[in-house]
Protein backbone atom coordinates (compact mmCIF):
# COMPACT_ATOMS: atom_id res chain seq x y z
CA UNK A 1 0.00 0.00 0.00
CA UNK A 2 1.36 3.46 -0.90
CA UNK A 3 2.70 5.48 2.00
CA UNK A 4 3.33 9.08 2.87
CA UNK A 5 7.07 9.35 3.51
CA UNK A 6 8.58 11.95 5.82
CA UNK A 7 12.23 12.84 6.28
CA UNK A 8 14.09 13.14 8.52
CA UNK A 9 12.52 11.08 11.26
CA UNK A 10 14.22 13.22 13.87
CA UNK A 11 15.65 16.72 13.51
CA UNK A 12 17.55 18.53 16.23
CA UNK A 13 18.21 22.21 15.76
CA UNK A 14 19.24 25.22 17.74
CA UNK A 15 16.82 28.02 18.51
CA UNK A 16 16.81 30.61 15.77
CA UNK A 17 17.88 28.22 13.05
CA UNK A 18 15.86 27.41 9.95
CA UNK A 19 14.55 23.90 9.41
CA UNK A 20 12.92 22.23 6.46
CA UNK A 21 10.77 19.18 6.98
CA UNK A 22 10.17 17.05 3.92
CA UNK A 23 7.30 14.89 2.81
CA UNK A 24 6.67 12.75 -0.24
CA UNK A 25 2.90 12.33 -0.54
CA UNK A 26 1.12 9.43 -2.17
CA UNK A 27 1.24 9.98 -5.93
CA UNK A 28 -2.49 10.33 -6.59
CA UNK A 29 -3.07 12.74 -3.71
CA UNK A 30 -4.00 16.29 -4.58
CA UNK A 31 -4.57 17.81 -1.13
CA UNK A 32 -1.76 18.14 1.36
CA UNK A 33 -1.57 19.05 5.00
CA UNK A 34 0.77 19.62 7.89
CA UNK A 35 -0.28 18.82 11.44
CA UNK A 36 1.76 18.85 14.60
CA UNK A 37 1.56 17.24 18.01
CA UNK A 38 3.38 18.76 20.93
CA UNK A 39 4.34 16.03 23.39
CA UNK A 40 1.34 14.95 25.42
CA UNK A 41 -1.05 17.24 23.59
CA UNK A 42 -3.54 16.89 20.78
CA UNK A 43 -2.83 16.74 17.07
CA UNK A 44 -3.22 20.29 15.70
CA UNK A 45 -3.94 21.47 12.18
CA UNK A 46 -1.31 23.80 10.73
CA UNK A 47 -2.00 24.25 7.04
CA UNK A 48 -3.67 22.80 3.97
CA UNK A 49 -2.33 23.09 0.43
CA UNK A 50 -3.97 22.52 -2.91
CA UNK A 51 -3.14 23.49 -6.47
CA UNK A 52 0.14 25.03 -5.35
CA UNK A 53 -1.32 27.38 -2.85
CA UNK A 54 -2.39 27.46 0.77
CA UNK A 55 -6.12 26.83 1.07
CA UNK A 56 -6.40 27.22 4.84
CA UNK A 57 -4.09 27.82 7.77
CA UNK A 58 -4.41 27.94 11.52
CA UNK A 59 -3.39 30.69 13.89
CA UNK A 60 -0.30 28.62 14.71
CA UNK A 61 0.90 28.97 11.12
CA UNK A 62 2.38 32.44 11.40
CA UNK A 63 4.96 34.23 9.26
CA UNK A 64 7.70 31.95 10.50
CA UNK A 65 6.12 29.03 8.66
CA UNK A 66 5.92 28.39 4.95
CA UNK A 67 5.05 25.48 2.71
CA UNK A 68 5.80 24.66 -0.86
CA UNK A 69 5.71 21.86 -3.39
CA UNK A 70 8.41 23.00 -5.78
CA UNK A 71 8.87 19.95 -7.97
CA UNK A 72 5.46 18.33 -7.93
CA UNK A 73 6.56 15.59 -5.58
CA UNK A 74 8.14 16.84 -2.35
CA UNK A 75 5.94 18.86 -0.03
CA UNK A 76 7.95 20.86 2.48
CA UNK A 77 7.35 22.78 5.68
CA UNK A 78 9.89 25.46 6.50
CA UNK A 79 10.28 27.13 9.86
CA UNK A 80 12.46 30.21 9.39
CA UNK A 81 13.61 30.88 12.91
CA UNK A 82 12.79 28.07 15.28
CA UNK A 83 11.66 28.62 18.84
CA UNK A 84 11.74 26.22 21.76
CA UNK A 85 7.97 25.87 21.56
CA UNK A 86 8.22 24.57 17.99
CA UNK A 87 9.48 21.29 19.41
CA UNK A 88 6.86 18.72 18.38
CA UNK A 89 6.05 15.85 16.06
CA UNK A 90 5.17 17.20 12.64
CA UNK A 91 2.92 15.07 10.50
CA UNK A 92 2.41 15.42 6.79
CA UNK A 93 -0.91 14.15 5.43
CA UNK A 94 -2.72 13.97 2.15
CA UNK A 95 -5.86 12.83 0.44
CA UNK A 96 -6.88 12.25 -3.14
CA UNK A 97 -10.12 14.19 -3.09
CA UNK A 98 -11.24 17.49 -1.74
CA UNK A 99 -14.40 16.17 -0.18
CA UNK A 100 -14.40 16.77 3.52
CA UNK A 101 -15.35 13.23 4.32
CA UNK A 102 -12.30 11.74 2.65
CA UNK A 103 -9.93 10.59 5.42
CA UNK A 104 -6.38 11.81 5.70
CA UNK A 105 -3.39 9.55 5.12
CA UNK A 106 -0.59 10.49 7.49
CA UNK A 107 3.13 9.97 7.35
CA UNK A 108 5.06 8.68 10.36
CA UNK A 109 6.12 12.16 11.33
CA UNK A 110 9.30 14.13 11.97
CA UNK A 111 10.24 14.75 15.56
CA UNK A 112 11.62 18.28 15.78
CA UNK A 113 13.66 19.15 18.84
CA UNK A 114 14.67 22.77 19.28
CA UNK A 115 17.41 23.34 21.85
Amino acid at each position, binding site marked *: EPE*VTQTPSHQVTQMGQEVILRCVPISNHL*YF*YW*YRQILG*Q*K*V*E*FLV*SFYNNEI*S*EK*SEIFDDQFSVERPDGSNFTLKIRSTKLEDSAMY*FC*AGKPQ*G*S*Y*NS*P*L*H*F*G*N*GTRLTVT
Partner: protein
Amino acid sequence: DQQVKQNSPSLSVQEGRISILNCDYTNSMFDYFLWYKKYPAEGPTFLISISSIKDKNEDGRFTVFLNKSAKHLSLHIVPSQPGDSAVYFCAANDETSYDKVIFGPGTSLSVIP
Protein backbone atom coordinates in the same frame (compact mmCIF):
# COMPACT_ATOMS: atom_id res chain seq x y z
CA ASP B 1 -10.69 25.92 22.97
CA GLN B 2 -11.42 22.22 23.09
CA GLN B 3 -14.02 21.58 20.43
CA VAL B 4 -13.43 17.83 20.59
CA LYS B 5 -13.02 16.27 24.00
CA GLN B 6 -11.92 12.85 25.08
CA ASN B 7 -12.20 12.91 28.81
CA SER B 8 -10.52 9.58 29.47
CA PRO B 9 -6.77 9.84 28.85
CA SER B 10 -6.39 6.09 29.25
CA LEU B 11 -8.38 2.87 29.34
CA SER B 12 -7.43 -0.71 30.18
CA VAL B 13 -9.49 -3.66 28.98
CA GLN B 14 -9.08 -7.41 29.14
CA GLU B 15 -8.55 -9.22 25.87
CA GLY B 16 -11.86 -10.44 24.45
CA ARG B 17 -13.92 -7.82 26.26
CA ILE B 18 -15.52 -4.71 24.80
CA SER B 19 -13.58 -1.43 24.66
CA ILE B 20 -15.67 1.72 24.68
CA LEU B 21 -13.96 5.00 23.88
CA ASN B 22 -15.94 8.18 24.31
CA CYS B 23 -15.83 11.56 22.63
CA ASP B 24 -17.79 14.76 23.11
CA TYR B 25 -17.87 17.81 20.88
CA THR B 26 -19.07 21.35 21.28
CA ASN B 27 -19.29 22.68 17.73
CA SER B 28 -22.78 22.09 16.34
CA MET B 29 -21.44 22.70 12.82
CA PHE B 30 -19.49 19.45 12.89
CA ASP B 31 -21.14 16.98 10.59
CA TYR B 32 -18.51 14.36 9.97
CA PHE B 33 -16.63 12.40 12.58
CA LEU B 34 -13.65 10.12 12.33
CA TRP B 35 -11.61 7.88 14.58
CA TYR B 36 -7.89 7.52 14.06
CA LYS B 37 -5.59 5.04 15.71
CA LYS B 38 -1.95 5.80 16.46
CA TYR B 39 0.87 3.50 17.41
CA PRO B 40 4.10 4.91 18.89
CA ALA B 41 6.51 6.31 16.28
CA GLU B 42 3.82 6.18 13.59
CA GLY B 43 1.34 8.66 12.20
CA PRO B 44 -2.39 8.42 12.88
CA THR B 45 -4.21 5.82 10.78
CA PHE B 46 -7.83 6.21 9.78
CA LEU B 47 -10.07 3.66 11.45
CA ILE B 48 -13.73 4.44 10.93
CA SER B 49 -16.00 7.41 10.31
CA ILE B 50 -19.60 8.47 10.58
CA SER B 51 -21.68 11.16 8.96
CA SER B 52 -24.08 13.20 11.06
CA ILE B 53 -27.02 11.80 9.12
CA LYS B 54 -26.35 8.40 10.66
CA ASP B 55 -26.33 7.20 14.23
CA LYS B 56 -24.26 4.07 13.74
CA ASN B 57 -21.55 2.77 11.47
CA GLU B 58 -19.99 -0.66 11.73
CA ASP B 59 -16.83 -2.11 10.25
CA GLY B 60 -15.88 -5.54 11.51
CA ARG B 61 -14.99 -5.33 15.19
CA PHE B 62 -15.36 -1.54 15.21
CA THR B 63 -18.63 0.32 15.62
CA VAL B 64 -19.07 4.05 16.01
CA PHE B 65 -22.23 5.46 17.56
CA LEU B 66 -23.30 9.07 17.22
CA ASN B 67 -25.77 10.88 19.45
CA LYS B 68 -26.21 14.29 17.85
CA SER B 69 -28.54 15.70 20.47
CA ALA B 70 -25.96 14.94 23.17
CA LYS B 71 -23.03 15.89 20.92
CA HIS B 72 -21.47 12.58 21.84
CA LEU B 73 -19.92 9.71 19.96
CA SER B 74 -18.34 6.48 21.01
CA LEU B 75 -16.16 3.81 19.47
CA HIS B 76 -16.83 0.21 20.42
CA ILE B 77 -14.25 -2.49 19.81
CA VAL B 78 -15.54 -6.03 20.20
CA PRO B 79 -13.74 -8.25 20.95
CA SER B 80 -10.68 -6.30 22.01
CA GLN B 81 -7.31 -7.70 20.99
CA PRO B 82 -3.80 -6.89 22.27
CA GLY B 83 -2.96 -5.41 18.86
CA ASP B 84 -5.66 -2.80 19.47
CA SER B 85 -3.44 -1.21 22.13
CA ALA B 86 -2.81 2.28 20.78
CA VAL B 87 -3.88 5.88 21.17
CA TYR B 88 -7.30 6.57 19.66
CA PHE B 89 -8.13 10.05 18.43
CA CYS B 90 -11.64 11.28 17.85
CA ALA B 91 -11.75 13.89 15.08
CA ALA B 92 -14.35 16.06 13.40
CA ASN B 93 -14.83 18.52 10.61
CA ASP B 94 -17.58 20.49 8.99
CA GLU B 95 -18.42 21.59 5.49
CA THR B 96 -17.66 25.23 6.21
CA SER B 97 -14.03 24.38 6.86
CA TYR B 98 -13.51 21.00 5.30
CA ASP B 99 -9.75 21.28 5.18
CA LYS B 100 -9.41 21.55 8.90
CA VAL B 101 -9.88 18.36 10.88
CA ILE B 102 -10.12 19.00 14.61
CA PHE B 103 -8.65 16.28 16.78
CA GLY B 104 -9.38 15.38 20.35
CA PRO B 105 -6.53 14.80 22.81
CA GLY B 106 -6.68 11.03 22.45
CA THR B 107 -7.34 8.02 24.67
CA SER B 108 -4.61 5.48 25.23
CA LEU B 109 -6.10 2.00 25.12
CA SER B 110 -4.29 -0.96 26.66
CA VAL B 111 -5.69 -4.40 25.96
CA ILE B 112 -4.37 -6.86 28.50
CA PRO B 113 -3.82 -10.43 27.32
